[in-house]
């Protein structure tokens, strides 16, 4: 990185540290923070969308749709996350490749399952075997986001389902008395009021989601915990210009600070959001705000 870094063994103190902290490997570590934040930024709204769809389905007057919503919430919430992450991603990946295989290679005569192997034609590979590494990474990250969204979406669905039922029935009845249709009641009265009941549950989920990022490595995304472990491990002088002992405690200490700061900021933002949503609501919080004003 810096010109004086060509012979790190001759450096010490801050100069050494500045070289050490700017190696290509450390750059990967810094980038992985961006990756994790980006994945969170995509996953959270997607999960909320899945949650809203799930909750709406579970409240539907159409029986099959209602069953679908209820089964989604029940199954995903009861299967251990790690099983879901290992099984579902491989199944999803193979499912996509199988569909492509059937459409792209109709005259392929060998079985797809050969013993332990899952074999599709070259053109059906997803992404193609000759695609550059970044496309593999994007695809892997996409699968990761989808899986996270599905899992956390089920929890969010349950929270939103509860929140929708917590909106006082009298509010909805009043809306109906004004002649609103079911759809209008939902959009104008139910949804705006449900957030205040949903937010405590959703903010919990957000905190859990932040801490679940190490699960990303199971899905092939090299996250911050992976790099901290890799960088902190003992490095012997034969394989690196920057030999050092077991420094994992410093790296994990740094991660601890990062996660603490991140959750703290989240808490502040969420409590402001809560104050906003409580405004004018027929809840204890709303009542307190009204009296204070």
């Amino acid at each position, binding site marked *: 990185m810096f010109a004086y870094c060509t012979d790190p063994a001759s450096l010490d103190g801050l100069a050494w540290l500045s070289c050490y902290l700017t190696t*290509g490997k450390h750059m990967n570590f810094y980038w992985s923070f961006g990756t994790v934040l980006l994945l969170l930024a995509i996953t959270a709204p997607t999960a909320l969308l899945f949650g809203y769809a799930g909750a709406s389905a579970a409240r539907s007057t159409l029986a099959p749709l209602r069953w679908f919503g209820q089964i989604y919430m029940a199954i995903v919430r009861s299967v251990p996350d790690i099983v879901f992450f290992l099984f579902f991603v491989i199944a999803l990946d193979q499912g996509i490749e199988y569909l492509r295989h059937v459409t792209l290679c109709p005259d392929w005569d060998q079985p797809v399952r050969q013993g*332990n192997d899952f074999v599709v034609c070259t053109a059906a590979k997803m992404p193609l075997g*000759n695609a550059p590494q970044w496309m593999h990474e994007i695809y892997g990250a996409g699968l990761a986001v989808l899986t996270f969204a599905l899992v956390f979406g089920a929890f969010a669905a349950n929270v939103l389902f509860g929140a929708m039922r917590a909106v006082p029935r009298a509010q909805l009845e009043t809306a109906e008395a004004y002649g609103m249709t079911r759809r209008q009641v939902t959009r104008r009265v139910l949804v705006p009021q449900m957030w205040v009941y949903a937010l405590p549950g959703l903010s919990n989920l957000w905190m859990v989601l932040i801490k679940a990022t190490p699960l990303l490595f199971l899905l092939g995304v090299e996250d911050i915990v992976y790099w901290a472990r890799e960088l902190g491990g003992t490095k012997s002088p034969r394989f690196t210009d920057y030999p050092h002992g077991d420094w994992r405690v410093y790296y994990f200490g740094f991660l601890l600070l990062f996660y603490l700061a991140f959750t703290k900021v989240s808490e502040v933002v969420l409590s402001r959001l809560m104050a906003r949503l409580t405004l004018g609501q027929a809840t204890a919080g709303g009542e307190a705000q009204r009296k204070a004003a």
Partner: protein
Amino acid sequence: MKSLILAAGAFALSGTMAFAAAHAETVRLGTEGAYPPYNFLNDAGEVDGFERALGDELCARAELTCEWVTNDWDSIIPNLVSGNYDVIIAGMSITDERDEVIDFSDPYTQPDPSAFVAMAEGDLSSGVIAAQSGTIQASYVATEMPGATLLEFATPEETVAAMRNGEADAVIADKAFLEPVVAEGDVMFVGEDILIGGGIGLGIRESDGELKAKFDTAIQSMKDDGTLNALIVEWLPGSATF
């Protein structure tokens, strides 16, 4: 007009086919990147080590375009089988158990002895022994050392750290991995070396006979002209050559 469209279509088709032929031979090599000197990430964050040099040379000889991928050791076989990469090149010893699930190329190292490393001399047969999970050493401790307690870790690094901080009495791993650890001075080899495993080979899907044949030919040609031995001497001093 019609023939023009046909010609354009034929041209596009042959173009795609030529493109496919030129690139069809991209082979993805999966490694762990945490087992020096076999494979590790260098300061630039790239895969480096004995297997990097070997893999690049094998691909050149077999006229394949190769791409390096890192993967967790625990899921390295499932990901090969489901097709996320085509070859495992991760210091994986050839064993009957693994051979049931995947195929191995011809070995590119002689059977490397495994060794114990500890802070001080002690009785290994009743001690706590750290090993990486899913390795031949872990199964050796589990089956052949009934008095010892096996402590498994996901990465090789953690096994050494566990021995250093006293959680385990000794660590067992391939001797070539432990040499640089011992070279640092504060720990030592204890007990006898043991010979387990049948040399290290490339892991390849059972349905990929053609790829296996290509790599076998390339490995044989490196054995014949002595380049493989030169690599072994450079990266794995103390290991037997061919």
